[in-house]
Structure formats: C-alpha cells, structure tokens
C-alpha cells in the first residue's frame, strides 16, 4: 500500500469512533487480521512512529504515522463472545488503517 499521501499529524482524538480498514495487503502489517473491519473508540494517541510497513522494506518509514490505542467491545469483535458484556480489547492501530 502507498502511504505517501498520509499526513503525519493525528486526524482523530480520544473518544472518536473509528473503523479499521478491511484490507488485506501483502507484507509486514501490524494490524491484526481479527480486528480488520471492526469499529472502536480512540482510547489515546500514542505519538507518531515510522510506518512499519515501509520500515520492513528497508525504506525510511516516512511520513511517520500517528499511532492510536483503539478500544473495541469484545461482544462486537467475536460472535457469541462469552464473558462480561463490558469486556474490552485495546489494540494499537496506525492512522492509515483507520477511517
């Protein structure tokens, strides 16, 4: 995926509802399969970091990507989830994977 057009400043803020892109590009991806296509809420902004998909190809990692911790409700992620309905899952997701 080409990330050259992605801005390196945060587009989202804590509390925003976001959806993880449902995409399946090849290569070194730090967005787990199981969370793609799911919606969650921004828990915090972690800072900006070199894009791991670029770094894995021995490129510069620029432009850097804001990294977020996104909170998902377990019952939304797993069909038939057993446990407390208030259980949550928090995953670090780079901005170019969020919409």
């Amino acid at each position, binding site marked *: 995926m080409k990330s050259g057009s992605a801005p390196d400043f945060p587009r989202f803020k804590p509390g925003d509802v976001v959806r993880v892109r449902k995409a399946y590009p090849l290569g070194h991806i730090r967005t787990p399969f199981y969370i793609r296509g799911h919606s969650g809420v921004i828990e915090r902004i*972690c800072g900006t970091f070199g894009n791991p998909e670029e770094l894995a190809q021995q490129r510069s990692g620029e432009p850097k990507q804001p990294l977020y911790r996104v909170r998902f409700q377990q019952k939304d992620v797993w069909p038939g989830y057993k446990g*407390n309905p208030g259980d949550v899952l928090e995953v670090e997701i780079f901005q170019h994977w969020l919409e």
Partner: protein
Amino acid sequence: MKEESGNYQPYSYFQLMEVSLRELLVEKGIVTDAQVAEEVEAMRKRTPAVGAGVVAKAWTDPGFKARLLADGTLGCIELGIEVAALKLVVVENTPDVHNVVVCTLCSCYPRMLLGIPPEWYKSRNYRSRTVREPREVLSEFGLQLNEQMKIRVHDSTADMRYLVLPMRPAETDGWSEERLASIVTRDCMIGVAVPKSH
C-alpha cells in the same frame, strides 16, 4: 529428542541458524564476540525484579503512581531505570477491571522491566486465545475472576509496551517497599496472576 547426559546432541535448526549468523557477523566485522557476550549479559540482568520495584513504588507513593499512569516511560526514567526505546503504558487493575497483556502478532514484551519473556507468552495458544476467551485462559493460569469483573485485554501490536499495575493486597499495610516488591511476580505484571500477601 531424548536428553541423556553425555550424549552428543546435534544443534536444532534454529540453534544452527543462530550460530551461523553470529559467526558470519563476527567474521565480517559487524559485531565482535565481546559485544555479543555483553548484550547477552545485559539481557540476563533484566529480571522481573525491576518491574516489581516500579509497582511497589506506585503502591506506596500516590504522586508517583499518578505520574506513572499518565506516562509510563517518564515514570521509569524518574526511578533511574534505563528504558531506551521503551514506550511504556501502565494499566491499572481496579476492583472492577482486570488487565491482561498479549501480543498476537509476535511476542512484544517490556523486556527492560521484566526480562526475557516466558515460553508460554510466545506460544500460539496464549497469543490466539487471550484476545478471544481471556476468562478461560486466565482460569488455566489458576486465576478465577468473578463474573462482575470486566476484563481489558491489551494487544501489544506496535510500538507500545505494557505493564499491569496490580491491586495492592489488603493485608499489606505498613509493609516496606522491598517487602511489597517481593510479592509482585512476573505473571502479576503480565496480568495472568494477582499478588498474594501470604
């Protein structure tokens, strides 16, 4: 493989790969044997005792605890812990919420605070099931949480590293920081156990 003392054991695939790569790097002058030995030594020196010291400090100093929860990295620097590239997020257990840490993609782990990760942390079993059925996984560690307790799973997928700040057991009033640290195990800081006062 049968382990009998005195018997010759051939290298496993990965051992052989490690030795070959290391010898090549030394041969090409990229690293020296001494540097490799130094790094291995430094890795062995990092133990869960470092993390336990951070937890004990947070239990006894509310101001420090607030700063640690706001920025885990700055909290560690304040204690003089060499954190280098570690971007630390400290997550606090409360009477309502229990935290547990996993890395589903590989085995990201706060090595500066906890040392080398245990084998099970890197297993496919732990990595794939903790995000999906945390309560069952925790019960297999002997940690039975009541149904009212909410579980918050942290998937350590990118640049952050996580440390669970467990709840201080009730019967530990008046304990010194050192004694408190002695009950904070590695598993408590990953979130698959809770500290016990006896």
